[in-house]
C-alpha cells in the first residue's frame, strides 16, 4: 500500500529514502541502503542475525519497521570499527579466537555483544552465554564466541584503564 519518505542516520551518515510502510528495517538497510552486513535469518525475532543498534540499544531489525527509525540513529556491523584500517576489539577477538565460521550469525553477535559489554564490561562466561542466548550460531558451537568475547572485554577494559 503506502510508502513514506524517511530520514535517519546510519553509521554516522544521514540518509533520506522512500520506504514501503510494511518494510522492516533489515530489508531497508540491505535493499535500499546496500548495507548487506546485517543478515536476515528467520524474520520473526528468534535467530538474532538481524540485530542492530537503534540509538545505541540492540534491537531486532526484522521486528522494527523502517518507518519507525525515522530521525533515529542506527549502527550496523559496518559501523562498529573505529576506522577502515582498525577493527573493533570484538571483531579482532572474533578473528583471533575462531569466533566465526560461515559468518552468518556474526553481525548479530557483534552488535548484541557491543551493547552488552557497555553495560557489563567485566562479565563472567555464564553472563556472556546468557547475553547471546538469543543469537543462534549453527557453526562454531559457541565456545569460541564466548572465548572471543571474554578476550574482547579484557582488551576493552585495558584500553579504558
Amino acid at each position: 500500500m503506502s510508502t513514506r519518505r524517511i530520514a535517519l542516520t546510519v553509521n554516522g551518515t544521514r540518509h533520506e529514502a522512500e520506504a514501503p510502510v510494511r518494510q522492516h528495517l533489515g530489508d531497508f538497510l540491505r535493499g535500499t541502503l546496500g548495507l548487506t552486513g546485517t543478515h536476515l535469518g528467520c524474520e520473526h525475532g528468534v535467530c538474532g542475525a538481524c540485530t542492530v543498534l537503534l540509538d545505541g540499544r540492540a534491537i531486532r531489525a526484522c521486528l522494527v519497521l523502517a518507518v519507525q527509525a525515522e530521525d533515529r540513529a542506527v549502527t550496523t556491523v559496518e559501523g562498529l570499527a573505529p576506522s577502515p584500517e582498525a577493527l573493533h576489539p570484538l571483531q579482532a577477538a572474533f578473528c583471533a579466537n575462531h569466533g566465526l565460521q560461515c559468518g552468518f550469525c556474526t553481525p548479530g553477535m557483534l552488535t548484541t555483544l557491543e551493547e552488552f559489554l557497555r553495560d557489563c564490561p567485566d562479565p563472567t562466561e555464564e553472563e556472556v552465554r546468557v547475553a547471546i542466548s538469543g543469537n543462534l550460531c549453527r557453526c562454531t558451537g559457541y565456545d569460541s564466541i564466548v572465548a572471543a568475547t571474554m578476550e574482547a572485554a579484557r582488551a576493552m577494559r585495558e584500553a579504558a584503564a
Partner: protein
Amino acid sequence: MKPPPFHYHAPRTEAEALALLAELAPAEGRILAGGQSLVPAMALRVARPLHLIDINGLPGLDRLDVGDGHLRIGPLVRHAMIRRESVPGPLGALLDKVRGHIAHLPIRTRGTVCGSLANADPASEWCLVVATLGGEMTARSLRGERAIAAEDFFQGFMATALEPDELLAGLRLPLLADGTRWGFHEFSRRAGDYAQAASLVVMEVRDGVVLAARIGIGAVEDRPRRLPEAEALLIGRAPTAELLRQAAATARATLLPTDDDPTRPALAEAMIRRALADAAGIALP
C-alpha cells in the same frame, strides 16, 4: 516472512491516537507498541491488521512512577526498563528477576509491559505477575477511562477485557511491604523461550507462620491465575518442607491444563514447589 500490506499511522498526541483507534478499530486497526509480538505474528501471517496505529511517538507514555503504595507502568515502558533500582522494596527485586526470563536482550529493549498484557499470552511472565499480585489496568478510549482488575482483565487464550477501541493506558501494581517473601520459577526448553510452566509465590510470614500467601500459575491454563485451594492450606501454619510439598500437590490437583502434554502437570507442580521453597527460604530437594 514479510508482513502483509497495511496502512501506517503515527499520531503525535494521545488524543489523536484515541481518535484514530475509535475510527479504525472497526476496520481492523490495531495499536503497535513494541511490535515484538505483533510484527512476528504479521510476518507469519497469523495477524493481518489493515491499520497500525504506532504509539511509539507519543510523549510521556514511558513513565514508571512510584506513589500511593503503587508502581505505575505506562504503555511505552519497555521490559528492559523494569529494573531493581527503579522500584522500591521486594517488588523491585521480584520484577527484576522476572524480567530476565522474558525473551532476549534485543527484544526486551523494544517490547513493552503493557503490550504483553494486551497480548495476553498464557505464558507471559508479566501476565502472571499481574494475576498473582492483583494488578489494575487502565483502559482509555474516546468514550472515557475505566479501571479493570486482573481477575476481569484476562478472559482466555490471548483474550482480554479491552474493547477494540481501547488503549491500555497503564498498569498499577501494589508495592510489597518490606519483609514480604517471594519466589519465581519457570521451565522453558531454551533460554528466552516462552515457559512451559511458570509460578510466582508471594508470602508473608510472621512468628514462623504464614499470614498471607498468593500462589500464581502461568503457561498451563488458558490464562494465568491464583490457586486459592493451595493458598488456603498454608495460612496459619509453619511453612515446612512437608507443608509446601502438600500445597504444590494440591495446586496440581486443581489445575485444568489446556493441552494434554503429559509433562505439563508435573512441570507445573515442580515450578510451584520451587517458588514456594524460595519464598519460604527453605531448601526443597
